[in-house]
């Protein structure tokens, strides 16, 4: 078996005959246990990619393969076992009256045994650090906590790839941090590939690879570090440049020879310190 988990082959998509193409001839791959971030401005086609991956939409042109299976009407039920998705609005994804009922819902639909469900609930609530909230009613949780439960519910069915489609967009800064910490932990401990869809460059720092979407096309496949150095281009396609990248660039302009594009405060401070103590 190959290491390829997701493959888009020349995929084009539009919502109707008369409508403009939302995705144009997109090709890319995601490998097992990899963390890939998809970034792009509103309307760049990034959420459409997520919906195509689990058969909520089908492309007019091209093919999509998940773990070797072609995504089509006949396979979507198998595909959806492999592709777990968490959406933007934490309030739209609850069905259970308690946290544990909610986590159990997806497993019930797939016919897991009761014993198996009980063990899995333990494991996944532990993974998102929500074990104390088993019997809490979902509406009593904060936005960040709700999204953590949504992640747990998806993990419970052991997907091969977990998609977070702007899962932090409606959260406050604290909720965002919670989710990013949870996601990092989950990816380290579970054999799952991660696809995070976002327009916030801060959230791609830990990804292995980044796919940048612009106007429905794959604009670039790169690493976070390389992307951070392309400030002019990022602004042109409507994305923000993180503080640390802007500062590093201004320092270079001011005659400080920064050799490596910093991804965080620590990296920049270490480099400055080296320069400082050398002189």
């Amino acid at each position, binding site marked *: 078996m190959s290491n390829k988990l997701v493959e888009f082959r020349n995929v084009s998509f539009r919502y109707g005959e008369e409508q403009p193409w939302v995705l144009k001839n997109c090709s890319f791959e995601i490998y097992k246990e990899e963390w890939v971030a998809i970034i792009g401005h509103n*309307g760049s086609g990034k959420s459409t990619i997520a919906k195509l991956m689990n058969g909520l939409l089908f492309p007019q042109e091209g093919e999509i393969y998940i773990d070797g299976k072609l995504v089509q009407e006949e396979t979507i039920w198998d595909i959806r076992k492999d592709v777990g998705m968490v959406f933007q609005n934490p309030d739209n994804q609850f069905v259970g009256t308690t946290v544990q009922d909610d986590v159990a819902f997806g497993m019930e639909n797939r016919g897991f045994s009761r014993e198996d469900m009980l063990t899995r609930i333990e494991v996944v609530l532990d993974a998102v650090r929500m074990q104390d909230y088993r019997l809490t009613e979902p509406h009593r949780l904060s936005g960040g906590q709700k999204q953590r439960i949504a992640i747990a519910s998806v993990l419970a069915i052991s997907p091969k790839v977990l998609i977070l489609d702007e899962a932090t967009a409606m959260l406050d*800064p604290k909720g965002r941090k919670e989710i990013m910490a949870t996601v990092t932990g989950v990816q380290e401990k579970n054999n799952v590939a991660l696809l995070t869809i976002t327009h916030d460059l801060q959230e791609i720092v830990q990804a292995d690879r980044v796919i940048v979407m612009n106007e429905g096309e794959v604009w670039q496949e790169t690493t976070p570090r390389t992307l951070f150095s392309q400030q002019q281009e990022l602004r042109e396609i*409507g994305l923000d440049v993180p503080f640390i990248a802007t500062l590093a660039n201004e320092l270079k302009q001011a005659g400080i020879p920064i050799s490596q594009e910093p991804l965080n405060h620590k990296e920049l401070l270490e480099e400055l310190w080296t320069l400082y103590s050398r002189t």
Partner: protein
Amino acid sequence: MDIIFKNVSYTYQQNSPFAHKAIDQLNFHIPSGTFVAIVGHTGSGKSTLIQHLNGLLQPTEGEVWIGDYHLTPDKKPKDMKKLRSSVGVVFQYPEHQLFEETIAKDISFGPKNFGVGDSEIQRRINEVLPAVGLTEDFLERSPFDLSGGQMRRVAIAGVLATKPKVLVLDEPTAGLDPRGQREMMDMFYDRHQKERLTTILVTHSMEDAVTYADHVIILNKGTKYMEGKPEEVFVQKAALQKVQLDVPEIVTFLDRFEARFGVSIPFTRQTEKELASTIANVIKEGSVHE
């Protein structure tokens, strides 16, 4: 218009077992023409506070002054409609409030309700449309055929067309992409200055508060937790973290810089460019001393 809150409390479902005090003994004075940021995490009372600004809620204790309009527990201004035409509120996700067949009709709805004549409405539409970044060919289209970002611009145009003197913005950029966020905030700031508005921005974004506000009020559990200029408030990291708020990223960086280099650079709302030149000096001076 000056905005004054004097010992204002609001209790939901008062005199019932479900009574819940959302704001508690709030005092502040916002002078006319100020750009104020109100910051607090979810549940801190921000939404309850702003509903007092146009009389959607009356305080259950204390008094509120909006210019000459006076709100107390047992008295609301006689001319509530006039208060509401002076205070424009852009609620969260305002695009959910669109309802008319065409964009022109939707923008006209507010001013029409406040008794503005047709020719004046037309003039205002021509003025606010470019301000929110839309063009005239949109006017006869249905607002429901637009993208989310465009729908929000239509909704905001509707508020601006009422020519408010006070503009209240509740998380106006939530859900927009970075360019959309910046364009929208710049647009509000431009209106604020040109129309000499009093602007109240409710936000989670410390970066927006630093960039645009003259004055910051931090709420926690319905009470005023801190108040002052952004450069005074946002350096108090420990106090802010206690109420689960972050300082702007540049302040965190300055702290870490001091820890590593033993050199303190004060926070003055400087740009990245200004900061880079300060740091460059520190590093180059190091070479001079050696």
